[in-house]
């Protein structure tokens, strides 16, 4: 789990009783600017409000005509600050929010891309192939022996390789451009055609991706006969290099692969985890 969460302020654009509504164009401009800076924003209109409880501070903006009310959360859990925006243009309103936030850190778009696998459990068969495949310990097993994403901050940005080898097309990367990796609906006939079972040994042999393209029995037989750690790693490197050339794996991911020893160690651990989880099912 990524733990560096910084979202110190929730903004409420209050246009209910006691506040004059902004012109629609100004409202849209303010909301777009705040969202693009990483804030969450509620538009609370006349007669209703939408404020799910939250453990953070609220900044309530309203055209209170100079009389911003003092507000207090009935539960005492949320601190509420109010600001009068009467007469302010959208840029000034956005600046006011920034000033209210002060120097508190906040997650901001542009500095990081939320890139991690999302498992579609309606398709996942818990085969553990992704656990065996990923070299970066992104996957793990829950207490009830279900595959889960445990270390999404280990995932290599723009690398959707585990999604490509999932036999059930159950792994999504929502920020990916193309389907079905991005979560688009799946053509079931294509999904069936793409099914392939691999394990870490095929990864070490560097043949997993070419196997996706050429699944002949002869190739598999040849692969298993020639398997040895050194040769396998050489082939794997060639294959990965080709994948980089084909645009399947970003170059920086290839450059950050663990050492040979680490890969072998991870392979043993991952295989044992997967075997234990499968045996316990």
């Amino acid at each position, binding site marked *: 789990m990524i733990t560096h969460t910084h979202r110190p302020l929730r903004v409420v654009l209050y246009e209910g009783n006691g506040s004059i509504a902004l012109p*629609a*164009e100004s409202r849209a401009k303010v909301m777009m600017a705040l969202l693009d800076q990483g804030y969450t924003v*509620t538009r609370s*209109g006349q007669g209703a409000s939408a404020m799910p409880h939250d453990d953070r501070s609220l900044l*309530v903006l309203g055209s209170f005509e100079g009389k911003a009310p003092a507000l207090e959360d009935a539960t005492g859990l949320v601190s509420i600050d109010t600001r009068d925006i009467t007469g302010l243009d959208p840029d000034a309103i956005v600046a006011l929010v920034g000033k209210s936030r002060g120097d508190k850190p906040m997650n901001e778009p542009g500095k990081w891309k939320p890139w991690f696998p999302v498992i579609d459990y309606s398709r996942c068969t818990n085969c553990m192939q992704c656990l065996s495949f990923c070299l970066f310990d992104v996957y793990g097993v829950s207490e009830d022996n279900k595959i889960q994403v445990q270390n999404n901050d280990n995932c290599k940005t723009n690398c959707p390789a585990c999604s490509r080898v999932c036999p059930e097309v159950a792994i999504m990367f929502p*920020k990916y451009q193309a389907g079905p990796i991005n979560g688009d609906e799946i053509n079931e006939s294509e999904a069936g055609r793409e099914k392939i079972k691999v394990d870490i040994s095929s990864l070490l042999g560097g043949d997993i991706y070419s196997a996706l393209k050429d699944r002949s029995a002869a190739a598999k037989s040849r692969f298993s006969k020639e398997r040895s750690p050194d040769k396998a790693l050489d082939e794997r490197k060639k294959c990965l290099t080709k994948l980089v050339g084909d645009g399947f794996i970003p170059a920086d991911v290839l450059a950050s692969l663990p050492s040979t020893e680490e890969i072998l160690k991870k392979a043993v651990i991952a295989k044992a985890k997967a075997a234990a989880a499968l045996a316990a099912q």
Partner: protein
Amino acid sequence: MSSSPATILYCRCAYAQVVPTGVKNDVLQQLCASEASFETVSDLCEMAAHRDPRLQAIASCGKLRIAACYPRAVKGLFQQAGSPLPADTEILNMRTQTAQEITDALLSESSIQQPISSIEP
């Protein structure tokens, strides 16, 4: 048509820009031009990555209509963050649908804002 009101949630997809800018801007502008109250977040993926507790608040606030991206991905994000969406959640896809289709669905009769807790200065 369902008579129960729905909460509207708009995702800006601000961290990666995979949603077409024109569509997401048009949807937000049309929401802003309406009378509806609604929730907006900068990026649901970013929130899911951080297991943001606000996802739980959103998932537990009753009937939902969400403007974001592919429904399979949105459901998966909430589930993976430990806050599965209610089965009757409607998810509109700004990557494939038009802004008009989305706002028509978001603002249809049954999507009047569900009050979760009220604030009246």
